[in-house]
C-alpha cells in the first residue's frame, strides 16, 4: 500500500503528496490532461512541441534550467497521445525551487519568437532522428492511420507530418497553451523526503493565485468497431521483410485492458513466451518477434511485430502467427502460464515501486484516470483475471475483422 494525501486548490489544481523519508530527494511531477489526441488534425505535434517550449522560460523566469541546476536538480518531460508529463527531481531541501519554477510556467510561458523558432528546428531534428533516418521508422505513421479512421490516435505524438511543426505560429502556440495548460487541467504530485504540511503551504504560496482557466472538455469521436480486415503493403530500402499486425482492444479503465495486458505477456513476454518459442526458436521464421500494447486511455491496440528470417515468405510467416493466435483462441492458456504471468505482474509492480520517481508519476496518472487510489487497487485487477477471461478476450481481439496488417517488404 502506498500512502498519500490529496487536496484541491480553489483554482482546481489537484495536488497529491506522497511522503517517503528513505530518500534525500524530492520529485515534483505535473501532469497535464492533454496529449496528441487533443490536437487539431491540421496542427498535429503541438502537445509534444510544448514539451520543448516549456523549457524555454516562463513569464517571470527567463531560464528554467539554470536555477534548477543551481539547486542540484534535473528535469525532463514526455508527451504521449493521452498526457503530457513534466518532472523534476532535486534535493528535498530545495523543493521550493521546483515549485517556484513549475508554478511560473503554469502561470504563463514567455512566448518568445526565438525560442519557438529554435524548438521548431529541434523537434524537426528529433523527427528526422527517430522517424525518417531510421529503417522502419515510418511504420506506426501508416499503421495508426490504418487502424484509426476516426479517432485522433491516427497520428503520432511527434506529429502527422513535419510541416505541421514547421508552420506553427506563436499565435497557435498561445491558444493551445491557454486552452490546455491551466490549473484546472493539471495534477501536481510531490513525492519523496517531504512533509505534507509544508508541501501544502508551499503549493498554496506558489500556485493558489494562478487563474483556474476554463475546463477543457474533450469531445473525441469514438472509433467504431472495425468490421473488415485492413491490409497494406510497403516496399522500402530496408534489409529485411517485416510483418506488423494490430488489433483494437479496450480502454484503460475496462476489464479488457488488464486481460489484454496479460495476453501480450503470454504471447510476447520474454524467452519462454509463445511467439518467441514457436516462431523464432522452433520454426525459425522470424529473427525477432514481439507482442505489446499501447495501453492508451481510449481504446488502444495490441500489436505483434517481427522481422522475417531472410528467405522466409511473408505468407508463411503470417500464417504461423495466425496459427499461434488460433491456438490461443481455441485452448486458452494453461494453469502454469496463468501463475507465470501473475508472478511476473507481481514482480514488475514491485520493481517499479522501488523508485520515488515512478511512484509519483503513477500517482499522477491514476489521479488523471479518476483517482490516485487506483494505484493501490490496480494490481488486484490483474490478479482477478482468469483463464476463461483470457480465452474469451483473445477470441474477441484476434478476430480477423478486427485486424490491421502491414507487410513491409525489403527492396533488396
Amino acid at each position, binding site marked *: 500500500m502506498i500512502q498519500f494525501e490529496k487536496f484541491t486548490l480553489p483554482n482546481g489544481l489537484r495536488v497529491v503528496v506522497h511522503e517517503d523519508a528513505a530518500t534525500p530527494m524530492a520529485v515534483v511531477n505535473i501532469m497535464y490532461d492533454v496529449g496528441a489526441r487533443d490536437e487539431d488534425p491540421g496542427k498535429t505535434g503541438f502537445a509534444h512541441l510544448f514539451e520543448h517550449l516549456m523549457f524555454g522560460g516562463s513569464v517571470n523566469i527567463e531560464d528554467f534550467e539554470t536555477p534548477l541546476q543551481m539547486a542540484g536538480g534535473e528535469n525532463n518531460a514526455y508527451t504521449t497521445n493521452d498526457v503530457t508529463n513534466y518532472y523534476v527531481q532535486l534535493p528535498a531541501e530545495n523543493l521550493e525551487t521546483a515549485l517556484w519554477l513549475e508554478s511560473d510556467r503554469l502561470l504563463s510561458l514567455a512566448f518568445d519568437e526565438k525560442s519557438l523558432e529554435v524548438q521548431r528546428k*529541434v523537434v524537426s531534428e528529433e523527427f528526422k532522428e527517430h522517424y525518417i533516418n531510421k529503417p522502419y521508422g515510418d511504420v506506426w505513421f501508416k499503421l495508426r492511420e490504418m487502424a484509426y479512421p476516426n479517432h485522433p490516435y491516427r497520428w503520432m505524438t511527434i506529429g502527422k507530418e513535419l510541416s505541421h511543426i514547421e508552420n506553427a505560429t506563436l499565435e497557435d502556440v498561445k491558444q493551445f497553451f491557454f486552452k490546455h495548460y491551466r490549473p484546472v487541467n493539471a495534477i501536481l504530485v510531490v513525492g519523496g523526503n517531504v512533509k505534507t504540511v509544508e508541501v501544502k503551504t508551499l503549493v498554496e504560496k506558489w500556485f493558489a493565485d494562478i487563474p483556474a482557466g476554463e475546463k477543457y472538455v474533450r469531445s473525441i469521436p469514438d472509433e467504431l468497431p472495425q468490421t473488415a480486415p485492413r491490409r497494406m503493403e510497403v516496399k522500402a530500402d530496408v534489409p529485411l521483410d517485416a510483418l506488423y499486425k494490430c488489433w483494437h482492444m479496450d480502454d484503460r479503465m475496462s476489464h479488457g485492458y488488464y486481460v489484454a495486458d496479460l495476453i501480450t505477456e503470454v504471447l510476447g513476454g520474454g524467452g519462454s513466451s509463445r511467439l518467441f518459442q514457436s516462431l523464432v526458436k522452433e520454426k525459425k521464421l522470424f529473427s525477432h518477434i514481439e507482442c505489446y500494447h499501447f495501453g492508451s486511455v481510449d481504446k488502444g491496440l495490441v500489436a505483434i511485430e517481427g522481422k522475417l528470417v531472410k528467405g522466409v515468405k511473408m505468407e508463411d510467416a503470417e500464417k504461423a502467427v495466425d496459427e499461434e493466435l488460433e491456438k490461443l483462441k481455441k485452448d486458452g492458456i494453461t494453469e502454469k502460464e496463468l501463475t507465470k504471468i501473475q508472478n511476473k505482474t507481481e514482480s514488475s509492480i514491485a520493481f517499479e515501486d522501488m523508485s520515488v520517481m515512478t511512484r509519483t508519476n503513477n500517482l499522477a496518472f491514476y489521479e488523471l484516470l479518476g483517482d490516485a487510489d487506483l494505484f493501490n487497487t490496480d494490481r488486484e485487477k490483474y490478479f482477478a483475471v482468469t483463464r476463461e477471461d483470457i480465452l474469451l478476450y483473445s477470441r474477441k481481439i484476434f478476430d480477423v475483422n478486427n485486424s490491421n496488417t502491414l507487410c513491409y517488404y525489403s527492396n533488396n
Partner: protein
Amino acid sequence: MLNRTIAPIIKEPVDFTISLPGCQKHTLSNGIEVYTVDMGSEETLMINWVFYAGNWYEDTKAVAAATNFLLKNGTSKRSAFDINEHFEYYGAYLSRSCYNETSELTLHCLNKHTNELLPVAAELITDAVFPAEELAIYKQNAKQRLQVSLQKCEFVAGRLIDAYLFGEQHPYGKYNNAEDYDAIQREDIVAFYNNYYRNGRCVIFAAGKLPADLINELEKHFGSLPLRSHRQELTVVRHPLQPAAQKKSHIINDAAGVQAAIRIASPFPNRHHPDFQKGLVLNTLFGGFFGSRLMANIREDKGYTYGIYSYLLNHIHECGWLISTEAGRDVSEATITEIYNEMELLREEPVDDEELLMTRNYMIGSILGDLDGPFQVIGRWKNLILNNIEESYFHNSLHVIRTVTAQELQELANKYLQPDQFYELVVI
C-alpha cells in the same frame, strides 16, 4: 503580492554532506568475493555475477559476446526454453551482458523466490552446453540485427570512432562484421566458457532488501565451484593501442540520409590519473548535461540537433573524450565548427563563478539522486571495486567537484581540448 522574479533561497548542494551507504564484503570458501548492499523497502533483490570474460580475453572476434549470450541457451539438464521458463515462471529477470573486460549475469527477483533461482544460475555457470542449433540461430539473428543497424548512421559512426581511437584490433576498437559471426566455432565457445566462466575469475554483487540467509545460500551454490577470485590474474593480457593515422573522415552511408552522425574523439587518461576527476567537471560543463555549453549553443540557440553530449569514456585501461551528436545534414559542418568554437572558449577564457557553481551544484545533486536506492548504491561500489580503487576515491571526487578552480579547468582545456588531438568523423 508574490514577486515571482525572486527565486526562493536554495541550499547549495556543494555544501551537502554526502556519504556513500556502506557495503559489506564476504568471501566464499573458494575465495570469491561477495559485496552486498542491504537497503530498500520492497522485497526485491538483484544479484550480479561479474566474470572477467569480456572481449578483452577472446582470441577470435565475437566469441566472448556469443558465449555470454548463449549461457542461457541450454545445460545438460535443461533446454533454452526450460531455463527461460524457470526464471520467468517466478517473475524473475535473468539478463546477461558482455563488455570489454567483463561480462555479467544479472538476476532480478522477488526475495521469496531466490532459493528456487540460485541453483539454476549455478547450473548455467557450471553446465552450459551451447547446443549447435542454438548457436546457428544466434548467428543468423545477430547477422540480421547487424544488417538493420548498419543502415543507421549513428551505429556506423559509433563503431568507427572507437576503431580510429583505439585501433581495429584493440578490444575497445574492434567490431563485428557478418563474416565474424559466420566464423564463430562452437569449440571456441566451449573453450572460452571453460576458461573464463566455469574456471573463471568471478565477483558477486547483491543489493536490495536482502534475505537473511543469502550469504549461506551463495556459499552453498557457488562457494565450492572451481571459480577463482577476481583479484587473481594468472597471465596479464595486454593489447597495444593502434590508433588510426587519418584524423578526419567523412562517410556517406545512406545517400538519402537527412541527418549526419558526428563523432569527435581524443585519447584521455584513465581514472587513476590526477586529471581524470577534474576532467569530469570540465566535461560536464562542456557537454555533459542539459545545461552544458554544447547543448546551450548547438541545440538551444541554433536548433541544429535534438541533442548533443560529450563523455569521458569509462574504460578500465584507456579512456577517451568523445563528443557525439546527430545533426541536420545541411548543418553538420556548422555544428562541427561550433564544437571547436566551444573548445576554444574553454581554452581562452576562464569559466565564470556562476556557471562553475551551477555545474558543481548540478553534479553534486546528481550524485545524491544517483544514490537513491540499493541498486544505485551497489552500482557505485561496483565501479570502485572493478576499477580497483578505494572508497576514498568517491569522497575525493566530491572534493574535486567542490574545489576545482576556473584556472585549473582552463589549464585542462588547454591540455586536452586541442582540435588537432581529435579524430573527427561524419557519417551521413
